[in-house]
């Protein structure tokens, strides 16, 4: 059963995986292109099987605060949304960061700014990896590039969130959410019992027991000295994550003279662009960051001895390219190629951009 191969949309696979990963609660508000997440959960009725709660909140503001509260009880809680909804959530996201709460948020990006369009985009890169809310905080960001990864990253996202008591974001895009591919769903994992949660999350607000003081979860600290200590602790946590959790994938980089970098579905298009370019004799490889925070700065540096230039391909006006430039420190040429407003470039456009902007 667990090894069954299914044909599913990314959004559907993510919803199924949530149930199988022992998720305790989903609070969301529908928005294209990710509405199938809640639709699938409502269809599968996990409250009748695993006991997982699925609730349509009155808004994204409400759903992120329900996530904050449920996750504050040490439960595995998630929400999903798309770009305008993610903006509405930023206050809650910052509070969750300030309170060291583990939770999972999925953003299936669409074109912006504003209400924008409903088609695929990657224009929320800055918002997600540089902090869309206020204060010095970061969140682990996973960028799936297939329906399989939409399913796999739910469990991974929860595991990372609970390992570091941090918000984890699955940053997908409309293309991954809407396309259907083969997927092997993860095996069923039971929801944790209250005893297990009390043991794993001694900070959880599950009601006081005689052996400990009251647990208080807040991001408020009026005295500056303890607030600075809290900030220092957060930064230490982020440094540890940067040391331990960098994930990336590579395709034909061994002998590459040029690199294309792309994340999410853009990396799929770029893989085809690499295949096409290789047939034309161009030695190009693909470096795909899987974690956007932490970002694979060091892996990029390792390539600098043998490459002449990097093309960053994104469905935006140039965001990840800035992180690539931070890694490269001017040593090789770094250019951006992207489409905006919900338009997805074709592999042919990427090959042309590589020739025109990098190789010349």
């Amino acid at each position, binding site marked *: 059963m667990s090894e069954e191969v299914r044909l599913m949309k990314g959004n559907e696979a993510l919803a199924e995986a949530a149930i199988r990963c022992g998720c305790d609660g989903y609070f969301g508000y529908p928005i294209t292109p990710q509405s199938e997440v809640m639709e699938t959960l409502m269809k599968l009725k996990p409250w009748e099987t695993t006991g997982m709660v699925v609730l349509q909140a009155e808004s994204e503001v409400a759903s992120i605060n329900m996530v904050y509260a449920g996750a504050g009880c040490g439960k595995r809680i998630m929400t999903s949304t798309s770009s305008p909804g993610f903006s509405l959530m930023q206050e809650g996201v910052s509070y969750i960061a300030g309170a060291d709460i583990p939770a999972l948020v999925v953003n299936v990006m669409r074109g912006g700014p504003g209400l924008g369009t409903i088609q695929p985009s990657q224009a929320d890169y800055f918002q997600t990896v540089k902090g869309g809310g206020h204060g010095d905080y970061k969140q682990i960001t996973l960028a799936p590039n297939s329906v399989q990864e939409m399913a796999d990253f739910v469990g991974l996202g929860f595991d990372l969130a609970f390992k570091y008591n941090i918000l984890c974001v699955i940053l997908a895009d409309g293309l991954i959410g809407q*396309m*259907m591919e*083969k997927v092997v769903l993860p095996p069923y994992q039971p929801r944790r019992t209250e005893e297990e949660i009390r043991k794993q999350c001694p900070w959880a607000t599950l009601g006081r027991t005689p052996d400990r003081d009251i647990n208080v979860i807040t991001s408020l600290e009026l005295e500056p000295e303890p607030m600075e200590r809290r900030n220092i602790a957060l930064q230490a946590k982020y440094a540890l994550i940067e040391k331990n959790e960098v994930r990336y994938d590579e395709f034909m980089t061994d002998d590459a003279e040029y690199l294309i970098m792309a994340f999410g579905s853009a990396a799929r*298009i770029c893989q085809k662009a690499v295949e096409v370019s290789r047939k034309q004799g161009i030695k190009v490889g693909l470096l795909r960051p899987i974690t956007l925070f932490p970002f694979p700065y060091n892996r990029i540096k390792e390539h600098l001895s043998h490459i002449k230039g990097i093309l960053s391909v994104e469905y935006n006006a140039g965001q990840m390219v800035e992180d690539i430039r931070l890694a490269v420190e001017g040593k090789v040429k770094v250019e951006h190629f992207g489409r905006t407003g919900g338009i997805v470039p074709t592999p042919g456009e990427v090959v042309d951009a590589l020739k025109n902007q990098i190789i010349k």
Partner: protein
Amino acid sequence: MKEEIIIAGFGGQGVLSMGKILAYAGLMQGKEVSWLPAYGPEQRGGTANVTVIISDDKISSPILNTYNTAIILNQQSLDKFESKVKPGGRLIYDPYGITKAPTRTDIEVYSTAAMDKALELNAAKSFNMFILGGFLKLCPIVDIEHVMLGLKKSLPERHWNLLPQNEEAIKTGMEIISKR
């Protein structure tokens, strides 16, 4: 072996479901598949299209510049996708509602009077299966048993009584397609 297909027409013609049946059939035949619909304003404005890739090897990009096969069911889609067929590729279209026929000579153009046939047989709802039959005749990348399994998978159980009718439509579709 790899087949890269665009299916395009009006919403309601069964464009997306035809693609889904092909994708399911490919899956059940052990192939790699991707199904990518246009879910944006064109779908809401009436036209619909879907890119289906069926391949022996892992699929890199689900988005393509050009296609081996274009299955075209209205004039807007013909205008948009005729130029996107690879040289030597094939274009299948139903002349119903087409005012400007395809003009390319470096591709194989096939026409299928599926709409006329569906109306004649009082089987308008099976329209897309007549089209699918024509495609499978030219490109048997998936076999008919798997197509029927795919059809079963994509139909809700309450409609399984319609399976024989659809199989009939696929077979008829294989007969009515002809090279321009």
